[in-house]
C-alpha cells in the first residue's frame, strides 16, 4: 500500500513534466497546426544556458529565470526564422523542418557544451519526504516541480481566458481568417504562441534535468512522452495535455515499479497506438471537429 502511494505520488511529478511538454506542443498545434519536434531540443538548450549562468553567478534562481527567458526568445526566434517560411506547404515539410531544427540544436549543443553528462542542481532538497515515518516517495524538490508546472499552467489558462491578448490568441487559433479580418495580427500571435511554448519547455527542462542529467540527447525521451501525453489528451486540448500527462506519468510509474522499468517506453507506445486507434483526436477532443 505504501508502495502504491509512492509510485502514485512520484508518478504525479513525472506526469507534470510530461504535461508541461504536452502543453507546449498543444499551444503550438492550436496556433499553427504544426507539431514542434524540436521542443525537447529547445528545452535542453535553455537548460544548458541555465547551467552556465548558475556556474558563473552561483545563483540557482538566476539560472532558472534566464532559462525561462531564453525559452521565450528561442521559441520566438524559431518561429520567425524557420517555421514562418513553411506556412501553406505540405505537412511533411514542416515535420522535416522541425526535425532539422532538433538535430541542429543537438549538434550545436554537442559542439559548444560537449557530450558528457552534466549534473544539474535542484532548487530544493531531494531527500524523500516522510509523513509520520512513512516515506512518501517524493522530495521537496518534487513538490516544487509539480507546483511550478501547475502554477504556470493556471497562469496561462487565466491569461487565455481573461485578457485581450489571450482572446487574440484564441481567436487566431480558432479562425485565423476572421481574426485577420478583425485586425488581429495573426502572425504576431503565432510568434507569441511559440515563445510561450518555449517558456514551458524551458521550465520542463530545468525541472527534470536534476534526475536525468544534462546531455545533448537528454530531452529526447521526455519529449516523446510529452508528445504521447498530448496525443492522448487531444492535441487541441490544453486540459487534455495536463490530464494526459498525469495519466501517463502515473501509469508508466506503475509499470516501472511493478513490472520492468525498461518496458515503460514500449507500454507508452502501446497506449499511444491504442488511443490513436480508438479516438484519433484524443480523449478530450471536442465533439465539433475543427474545420481544416
Amino acid at each position, binding site marked *: 500500500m505504501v508502495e502504491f502511494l509512492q509510485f502514485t505520488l512520484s508518478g504525479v511529478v513525472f506526469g507534470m513534466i510530461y504535461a508541461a511538454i504536452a502543453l507546449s506542443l498543444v499551444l503550438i498545434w492550436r496556433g499553427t497546426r504544426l507539431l514542434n519536434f524540436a521542443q525537447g531540443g529547445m528545452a535542453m538548450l535553455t537548460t544548458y544556458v541555465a547551467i552556465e549562468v548558475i556556474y558563473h553567478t552561483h545563483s540557482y534562481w538566476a539560472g532558472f529565470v534566464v532559462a525561462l527567458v531564453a525559452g521565450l526568445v528561442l521559441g520566438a526566434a524559431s518561429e520567425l526564422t524557420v517555421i514562418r517560411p513553411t506556412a501553406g506547404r505540405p505537412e511533411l515539410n514542416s515535420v522535416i523542418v522541425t526535425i532539422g531544427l532538433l538535430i541542429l540544436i543537438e549538434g550545436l549543443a554537442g559542439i559548444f557544451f560537449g557530450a558528457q553528462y552534466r549534473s544539474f542542481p535542484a532548487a530544493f532538497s531531494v531527500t524523500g519526504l516522510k509523513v509520520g515515518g512513512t516515506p512518501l516517495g517524493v522530495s521537496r524538490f518534487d513538490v516544487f516541480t509539480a507546483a511550478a508546472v501547475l502554477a504556470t499552467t493556471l497562469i496561462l489558462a487565466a491569461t487565455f481566458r481573461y485578457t*485581450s491578448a489571450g*482572446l*487574440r490568441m*484564441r*481567436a487566431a487559433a*480558432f*479562425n485565423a*481568417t*476572421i*481574426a*485577420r*479580418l*478583425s*485586425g*488581429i*495580427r*495573426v502572425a504576431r500571435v503565432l510568434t507569441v504562441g511559440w515563445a510561450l511554448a518555449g517558456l514551458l519547455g524551458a521550465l520542463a527542462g530545468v525541472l527534470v534535468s536534476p534526475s536525468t542529467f544534462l546531455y545533448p540527447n537528454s530531452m529526447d525521451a521526455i519529449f516523446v512522452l510529452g508528445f504521447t501525453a498530448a496525443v492522448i489528451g487531444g492535441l487541441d486540448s490544453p486540459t487534455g495535455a495536463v490530464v494526459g500527462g498525469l495519466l501517463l506519468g502515473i501509469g508508466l510509474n506503475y509499470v516501472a515499479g511493478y513490472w520492468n522499468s525498461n518496458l515503460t517506453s514500449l507500454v507508452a507506445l502501446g497506449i499511444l497506438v491504442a488511443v490513436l486507434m480508438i479516438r484519433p483526436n484524443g480523449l478530450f477532443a471536442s465533439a*465539433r471537429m475543427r474545420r481544416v
Partner: protein
Amino acid sequence: MSAEATAASAANGHAAALAVEGLVAGYGGVTALDGVTVTAHASGITAVLGANGAGKTTLLRAVSGMVKPRRGRVLLAGHDVAGQSPERIVRAGIAHVPEGQGVIPELTVEENLRVGMMSWRGKQSARAAAMEEEYERFKPLAERRRKLASTLSGGERQMLVIARALLARPRVLLLDEPSLGLAPRVMAQVMDLVVRLSREHGLTIVLVEQNARAALAIADHGVVLNLGRVVASADAATLASDVALRHHYLGF
C-alpha cells in the same frame, strides 16, 4: 484622380468611398478577376451580382486584403490600399464579412464582439459604450452575451457578425452573401438592417448576393460580373428592368 480632387468631391457626397480600378487577381494558375473596375458611392449600397464563379467573392477578398491583387488599385477615399495585409486594411476602414463564416462558435457572443474591437482606434473608455450600442441595436445578442456563439440561430449569428463588423467602425462594409442559409423572414430582416446601416449611419456598403432580386431591391447601384469581368454597371432600377441582362447573367 488626385487625392485632393477626390477629397474635394467627397465633400459633395457623390464621390466614391471605394473605387476598384483594373483589378486582376486569382489563385495559383487561375485568374478570377480580369481587370475589374467598380465604384462604390459614399453612403450607398452597391450590389455585386453574377453567377457562381463570376468572381464576386474574389473581388471582396482582394479589397479586404485576403487575396493579394496582381494588378490594379483599390482606392479608399483616394488612398491605394491594394496589396496591404487584412489587418492594416481593417484599420484603414474596410470591414469584410466573409461568406458562410462569421462567428467564431467556440467563443461567447461577448468575446466575438470584443474580437471585432481589436482594431479599435478610439479611446479605451469608449469601447464599453460602443458594445452597449450594439447590444441596443441587436437585443437578442444582449440576452445571450455570455453564451457560446455556437448556440445562436442563423439569423442571430448574422446579427452578431454584422455587429462585430460595425464595432470596427468601418467606412466601408463588404458583405458576402449575408442572407445565405437564412429563412425568408430572417433574410428580410437582414436586408432591412443593411438599408438602415446605409441610410441612418452613412456606411458605404458593397453587397455580394446570389439572390439578385433581393439585392437590387435595396441597392442604389449594381454591378454584374461574369467570368471575372464587369459586364454591366448601372443604377439598380435600370438593371432590374433590363430583362435580357437579368435572364442572361442573373437567372431571373
